[in-house]
């Protein structure tokens, strides 16, 4: 039975705005808001203006974009695969993106031109998505299995790159890159990835009706006129484009895509179509707040975003298992 509660969207959007504001004020370097505003009004460039426009705004934008992508991707895949454990990484897309980006680092392309990492990351995601679809298009289960296989392939490729890293330092960098971060990215990199992310969102935005019908079962959905193959293609292409581009930018960030749909579901009901948008907003909020936490937590070496999301996400996983056990007869 769907519990109808107050629409959480206004609250989440308000929180999102507040978090975005906080994200511009909070950083490793503490500048009082007054100084920040003075800096923005004073002749440019100055320290406050540089820090806000060149470092904190890109970081905030990226956190929002990546978080929303993961939340949306997770919601769509949980609906499509009708599996509560589905998340964007499941189809091998994150792994493919990571492998592509790591190849850019490995062969030194990243050093020669900065956009090599996101470009190859996106290419990797698309190849991985295509592979998954090629092998798994006949059904939900085969899609999951093909996704696992592609993930495994990507993981093997990553291990191989680490094994043969051109210099030990490159191995170190590959590892740290994989931990995920939205800090200190350039505007040009963000601009490169944005079209892919938006294209992915568009694909995913076309899925809700099909996902709703799919809750009745595959045969029933088809009898309602839903083209299941088309639905899978849309979902996969959307995830490959958006999550691939997000991973190429920010590295592998786990659990947001898994957690976000589950956390909004009790508030908006269990219809897949109603979860997509709140899940995206909540994912963005979650990632942004986590990224702010990283800046506040005093560590001598920077805590990486993906590490913190995993640390927060794992207990949630246990909770999910316990809850499923309680609910199942």
């Amino acid at each position, binding site marked *: 039975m769907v519990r109808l509660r107050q629409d959480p969207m206004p609250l989440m959007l308000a929180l999102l705005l507040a978090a975005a504001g906080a994200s511009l004020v909070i*950083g*490793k*370097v503490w500048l009082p808001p007054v100084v920040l505003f003075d800096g923005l009004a004073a002749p440019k*460039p*100055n*320290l406050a203006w*540089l*820090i806000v426009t*060149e*470092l*904190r705004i890109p970081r905030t934008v990226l956190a929002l974009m990546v978080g929303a992508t993961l939340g949306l991707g997770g919601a769509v895949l949980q609906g499509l695969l009708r599996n509560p454990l589905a998340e964007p990484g499941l189809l091998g897309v994150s792994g493919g993106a990571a492998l592509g980006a790591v190849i850019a*680092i*490995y*062969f*030194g392309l*990243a*050093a*020669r031109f*900065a956009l090599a*990492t996101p470009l190859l990351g996106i290419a990797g995601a698309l190849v991985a998505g295509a592979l998954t679809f090629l092998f798994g298009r006949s059904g939900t289960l085969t899609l999951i299995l093909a996704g696992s296989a592609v993930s495994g392939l990507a993981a093997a490729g990553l291990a191989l790159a680490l*094994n*043969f*890293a*051109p*210099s*030990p*330092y*490159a*191995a*170190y*960098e*590959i590892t*740290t*890159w994989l931990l995920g971060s939205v*800090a*200190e990215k*350039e505007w*040009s990199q963000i601009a490169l990835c944005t079209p892919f992310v938006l294209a992915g969102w568009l694909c995913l935005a076309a899925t809700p009706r099909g996902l709703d019908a799919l809750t009745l079962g595959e045969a029933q959905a088809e009898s309602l006129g839903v083209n299941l193959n088309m639905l899978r293609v849309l979902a996969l292409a959307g995830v490959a484009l958006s999550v691939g581009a997000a991973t190429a930018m920010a590295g592998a960030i786990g659990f947001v895509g898994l957690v976000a749909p589950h956390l909004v579901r009790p508030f908006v009901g269990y219809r897949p179509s109603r979860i997509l948008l709140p899940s995206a907003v909540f994912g963005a909020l979650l990632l942004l707040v986590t990224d702010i936490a990283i800046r506040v937590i005093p*560590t*001598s*070496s*920077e805590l990486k975003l993906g590490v913190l999301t995993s640390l927060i996400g794992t207990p949630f996983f246990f909770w999910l298992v316990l809850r499923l056990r309680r609910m199942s007869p």
Partner: protein
Amino acid sequence: MTTPRKNELSLKAASVCRRLACLPLMCLLLPACAGPATGTEGLPDGASSGALPAPVAVRKPTRIMSMMLCNDVLLLMMVPRDRIASITYLAHDAVEALLPGADTGVAINHGTAEEILLQKPDLILAGTDSAPMARKLAKAVGARVVEVGAANSFADIRRVVRQVGQAVGEPGQAHALLAEMDRKLAWLASHQPARPLRVVAWSGSQAVPGKGTLTNEIIAASGADNIAARLPDSRYGSFGLEELLAARPDAILQGETRWSGPSLQDAQSMHPLIERYWRGRRIGYPDAAYACGLPQSADAAIALRNLYRELPAGRPRW
């Protein structure tokens, strides 16, 4: 040129070999590169005289095996080649830059147990990591094991050089090398710049050397302030772009690892902000010179001092 077998690189060796790798560059910067080439020749006369106790007539080890890169270089500086059983496989590039040709004909080891048994050394110069394994096997081949720690300061360098000199039976060589180093340090100290520059060794925000690192020591000797030295008690901490902007150092020292392929770090240290505001203020220093505490570390400080002169006046403006 032999490249170390890549799959054998452990991350532990990483920090050392990555830095030692770019010794070729260091050679361009260090005037003393062509210093003592091999064995006992090539050292300034009279350097070994003075307060040194007369060399004791002990039997000098004749099959010395070095299991750490920094020891390799020291060993080649102090001992004739025919008394060296082997040096590490990592040494070649470094030696090629620092002491060209000094390792010709010297066998190499990969730090494995088998090689100890095979090469039957009478003295093993081990690093902190390789010492336990070396000790276990030393009995079997009848070798003495000397554990040489890492040198992170000029005081450490003095201790390590003396220790190695003593161990290989060449205390005079050690004394001469140190006298030369101290002469250079004294010159640096007596010619301090009027205004100490504020610098940071920053090549991407991940690991910036702070207090307790050799880099910090070299920067201090060069007459500059390492602004990362304020990092609390952690030798390598993160120092983000925000902090870099706020600190606005006079110059950014960027470690260059020319040994192997480029890495993401190179891209990261080229953030548009750095390009824009620190143009002409980026000093590429050879990572190598900062990895091993050697008598040549004083030359690294002198090289830095010389590079400061080419910096534009004043602080970066925006």
